[in-house]
């Protein structure tokens, strides 16, 4: 078990290191002079030189990379060029939209997928199964930002149950949750479709196992064997998918935030891209990648904790 944890920990560190190199490289090295890029084509040379000094671009590449990484480790993400405020403050404001949105969507996706997947598996080949599997085919194929627009059309514009966009802040948690509901549904649906399919096939695999036959031979009803033995074991692969989905939801939120005009990290990235505020783009992207890699690591650990076979092997 210790060897397994150490192995995963090593690859976690390597992943983060490579990710930081790639992001730093793409932003600061490849496009030429970031200061000139940020100021646009009409900038005067002395303005560019001043910004270069302010951004520390006159320093060697290695120094700049280490400054950036050590700064981030201490919570210092640098200073935004357009907002003139620390990037960490910008992130802190917006993460309270993006993170709750991703979690909300994750909960919804799980709440939809579990019953759907279990029901489909227990009715294999019958009308209920065929209907649910057909619905998941549609769910996987639907672009979530388009689904979001349809939700707005129906529930905000026609029925007026929700607002079409914007975020009132967390002063009134009920209103805040309400304004995140349509975005969370739009984000959750395609992921729920995938999760329901995984849940169903994982459960069907389990139902073919010897221990289920033994449980049935002992006299357990089909329903009891399903709930007491199969579902618990089928959860292991499902858990992995849920972990992976968190990253999809966090990244997918970037686009959904655009549809609903939510002031989250996604909007921050796009505003910074159009304002050429590369320091903000660099830090937000690194933060997202960091979160995704760490969550994947946590999933691996959880996996090892629930699956004794994996521990024994390692």
């Amino acid at each position, binding site marked *: 078990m210790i060897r397994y944890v150490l192995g995963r920990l090593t*690859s976690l560190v*390597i*992943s983060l290191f*490579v*990710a930081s190199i*790639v*992001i730093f490289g*793409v*932003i600061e090295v*490849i*496009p030429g002079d970031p200061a000139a890029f940020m100021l646009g084509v009409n900038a005067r040379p002395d303005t560019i030189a001043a910004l270069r000094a302010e951004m520390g671009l006159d320093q060697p590449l290695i120094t700049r990379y280490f400054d950036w990484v050590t700064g981030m480790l201490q919570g210092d993400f640098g200073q935004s060029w357009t907002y003139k405020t620390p990037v960490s403050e910008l992130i802190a404001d917006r993460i309270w939209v993006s993170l709750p949105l991703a979690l909300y969507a994750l909960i919804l996706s799980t709440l939809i997928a579990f019953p759907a997947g279990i029901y489909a598996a227990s009715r294999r080949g019958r009308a209920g199964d065929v209907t649910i599997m057909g619905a998941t*085919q*549609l769910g*996987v*194929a*639907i*672009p979530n*930002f*388009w689904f979001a*627009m*349809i939700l*707005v*059309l129906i529930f905000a*514009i026609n029925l007026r149950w929700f607002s079409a966009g914007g975020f009132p802040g967390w002063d009134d948690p009920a209103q805040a949750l309400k304004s995140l509901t349509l975005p969370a549904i739009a984000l959750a649906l395609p992921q729920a479709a995938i999760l329901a399919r995984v849940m169903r096939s994982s459960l069907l695999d389990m139902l073919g196992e010897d221990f289920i036959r033994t449980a049935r031979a002992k006299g357990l009803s089909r329903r009891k064997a399903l709930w007491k033995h199969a579902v618990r074991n089928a959860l292991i692969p499902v858990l992995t998918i849920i972990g992976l989905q968190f*990253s*999809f939801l*966090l*990244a*997918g939120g*970037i*686009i959904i935030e*655009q*549809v609903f005009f939510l002031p989250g990290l996604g909007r921050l*990235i*796009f505003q910074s*891209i159009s304002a050429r505020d590369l320091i903000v*783009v660099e830090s937000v*992207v690194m933060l*997202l*990648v960091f979160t*995704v*890699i760490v969550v*994947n690591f946590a999933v691996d650990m959880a996996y090892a904790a629930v699956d004794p076979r994996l521990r024994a092997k390692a």
Partner: protein
Amino acid sequence: MSRNLIIGSALSALFVALAVISFLWTPYDIETLDIPNKLQSPSALNLLGTDQFGRDILSMIMMGARTSIAVALLAVGIGMALGIPLGLLAAARHGSLLDELIMRGNDLVFAFPSLVIAILITAVFGASAVNAIIAIGIFNIPVFARLTRGAALPLWERDFILAARVCGKSATRISVEHILPNITNLMIVQGTIQFSLGILAEAALSYIGLGAQPPTASWGRMLADAQTLVSIAPHTALVPGFAILFMVLGLNLLGDGLRDWLDPRIRVART
């Protein structure tokens, strides 16, 4: 043939046909604006209505199909062209440092949130169809590399490969002449699935303005344009959305259908 295969190939063929026909003919020219005729609902003159500039939406869907298919197809091409050789190499040198490096590199790319990196690439290098292809293509490489290696490894244990080795064939020749033909079906099926994911990714990137640029038509940008019009002219949002949905659905069904059809074990079981 299964129902999936029939519906899937029909839907996919429909969109490919629209894209091909658009090279020869579209009902209207999409570069001519006709403002007085804007936001018309579907009618006999404009089968799918017109957009905010009075352009014919059916013509734009046909031109957009071209963009979507080209971007997704080339992205799959990048994934296959680099991923399959890497996978074959890793399998041929199974257990070596090279194998380990290729597989860890794969894990790394998998760990990245693809959409975020695609946004980063297109943001820095400029929004264009070519950069969208590269951004989507990069994330196809590990998919094909991993699948190829996984399928090739058990083949290396088989007698016919042993026979080829006894004949003195090199690992490269065995990979190309014996392993590759045996995993082609698998690659076709995965290619179809990645193709459909590519269509979705292209739509998402052009929706946020990081895909193909005007005047190139794209379904994602049609949706972005429609966003503020959805309450007054819902067809401007419904039509491109359904185009994406049916194209992706068609490819997914085609992939499922091909998998069953190409797998001799399932086919024998059925007959």
